[in-house]
């Protein structure tokens, strides 16, 4: 259970990136003149690409791309340098493997900007007499830490899945074993039984949360800008929301297997997608944006971002907190009612 957040943080922090590096490209230089060599040199010296060169015919291009290792083929026509010098214009052709459209786009952009830079360097004349100079400030993330966005997301994801799964399974297990009936016959009110099941997981999840926090601070160099106690308060609230959800799930089934599959497999992808930490929510069709409002993790994600990474106080997150509280109460009421009905 602790391995999970550890691995995720490491992965997101170090391994996963939407940038392009080490892209393998193929350059077919049919001109082999000074200009092309210069451009190729420039491309090679950038860290984005790993370059393979050879002069190939058009038919071979398809088979190279089909083999799957090369991302694109850059082709210089035979009279490149001559054309440039004598007519002022020359052409290059980029054929990209479009099966990964994003990477293709990025590669084309990179190549284009390298080539434009070359063009400017060699041929550009006067620079603009009137310059607008943008002065930039990167807020909240001066170090340019690329993994910042993922951390609240990982927290939300892990807490959600672990809490929900564990709670629902533990209750269903008792149902399966038959010990649930024993508990219910005892003088404890049903509410107490459920609470006693939930409390250990609440504590465990808080420990997990602390663990993730520590990891982010020490391994990923993240700075916690906000109020720690507010952070813990909100996280506890979210954990309770997840536990209530686990409760709800446990009411729907008597089999551990189903509870597990529902909480883990069923919840994983929706949580990842609808929190918005991996994919921007604004790009999704309206209906999905509406659905995402139903996912508690989304609200928690916003809260964490604001509090932990931006250092904002309660006045900025009270709306989201209210939503979480509302969800929790709703979930709890429904599952408790349901629980009692099941017993009858």
């Amino acid at each position: 259970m602790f391995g999970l957040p550890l691995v995720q943080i490491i992965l997101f922090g170090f391994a996963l990136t939407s940038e392009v590096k080490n892209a393998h490209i193929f350059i077919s230089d049919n001109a082999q003149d000074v200009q092309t060599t210069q451009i190729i040199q420039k491309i090679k010296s950038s860290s984005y690409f790993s370059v393979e060169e050879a002069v190939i015919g058009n038919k071979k291009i398809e088979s190279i791309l089909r083999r799957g290792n090369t991302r694109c083929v850059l082709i210089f026509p035979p009279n490149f340098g001559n054309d440039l010098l004598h007519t002022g214009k020359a052409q290059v052709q980029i054929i990209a493997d479009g099966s990964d459209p994003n990477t293709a786009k990025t590669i084309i952009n990179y190549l284009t900007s390298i080539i434009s830079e070359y063009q400017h360097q060699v041929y550009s004349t006067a620079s603009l007499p009137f310059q607008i100079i943008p002065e930039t400030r990167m807020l909240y993330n001066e170090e340019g830490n690329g993994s910042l966005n993922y951390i609240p997301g990982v927290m939300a994801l892990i807490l959600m899945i672990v809490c929900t799964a564990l709670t629902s399974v533990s209750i269903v297990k008792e149902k399966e074993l038959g010990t649930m009936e024993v508990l219910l016959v005892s003088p404890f009110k049903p509410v107490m039984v459920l609470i006693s099941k939930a409390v250990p997981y609440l504590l465990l999840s808080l420990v997990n949360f602390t663990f993730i926090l520590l990891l982010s601070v020490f391994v990923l160099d993240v700075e916690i800008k906000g109020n720690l106690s507010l952070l813990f308060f909100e996280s506890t609230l979210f954990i309770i929301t997840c536990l209530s959800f686990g409760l709800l799930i446990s009411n729907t089934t008597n089999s551990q297997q189903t509870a597990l599959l529902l909480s883990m497999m069923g919840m994983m992808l929706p949580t990842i997608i609808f929190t918005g930490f991996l994919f921007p929510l604004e790009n999704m069709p309206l209906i999905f944006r509406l659905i995402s409002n139903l996912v508690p993790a989304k609200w928690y994600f916003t809260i964490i971002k604001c509090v932990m990474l931006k250092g904002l106080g309660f006045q900025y997150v009270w709306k989201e907190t209210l939503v979480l509280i509302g969800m929790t109460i709703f979930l709890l009421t429904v599952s408790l009612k349901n629980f009692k009905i099941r017993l009858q």
Partner: protein
Amino acid sequence: MKRISFILQKEFRQIFRDKTILVMMFAVPTIQLIIIPQAINFDVKNINISVVDLDHSSFSQKLISKIGSSGYFRIVSADLSYRQALKHIEKEEADLVMEIPVGFERNLVREGAQKIGISVDAINGTKATIGYAYLNSIIAEFNTGLDINQVELSGNHSMAGIIEIEYSNWFNPMAEYKYYIVPGVLVLLLTMIGGFITALNIVREKEAGTIEQINVTPIKKWEFILGKLIPFWIIGMIVFSVGLIVCWLVYGIVSVGSMALLYLIAAVYMIALLGFGLLISTFSDSQVQAMFVAFFFIMIFILMSGLFTSVESMPSWARAISNLTPTTHFMKIVRMIMMKGSGLTDLKIELYYIIAFAFGLNGWAIWNYKKTS
């Protein structure tokens, strides 16, 4: 040999009696396959920007309208001060703030240079970089397009060297993201099912005590394992087919390459996955345990497989790990066949990897499973 038929008969009966699991195995992937690719989109559009225009000159207004009409940005507010604009970032309503200082136009003409303040919410790295890059290029374009600059430029007659770049996207001319992501999600779902189901099933028997009953009979190890693998393999292949049909019906995606090849490799991949589930079950004593362990590994498989992010961009240690997961190779193969029509020769290496995994995982599981302890 006859024994196997009895075993299979029992397994199938049990599987079909368990309606919930069946539903889970078919409905959940189908629904997710339909929903997820529609939700995922890496394009960066609708970047929210708050503008603080302290100059109100024709230059500043032209710049702002250029930004607004670029299609990339949504001007969320026009604020009176930087502080006010910042609040929008705090409330997550804006991603960037652009501040045009007082006397912008006047000073630009008089002194030849003027600064513009840009503040970026840098928490979301991708959005920030891209948004910032777009804004910069719009500003640069505006800069060049200013008539005061144009006059100067047209005076110069040196040889302009313009390199025209002609580009095309093969196999996906419109560069539509769905061709990339849909096969990916299909692989993802198959992986989840294959990995979890077998593990859960066997551990369930352990918990119920029926495994002991099996161990006491003359059922051979390989008969037992085959008896578990075959039904789930069949189900997995059916789910795969259903997935392919969904791909076709909902997204209009049909494999460019050979379906037979696709199925063949999917079959091998499925065996590898089931072997993985089997292996986990030999190590776990409770369903919860099996589930968590399986989840842990499958998470890693999925994240490292190049589903969302590309494998080559990973640091070399991560790439090595990625190569050790069967999902990476299958992901590559599926995309290559479905989108590029790659053939057996192109896929040889990846196929070898998957076959190795199938043998390795299953072999380990079989060796590990002991009827006598």
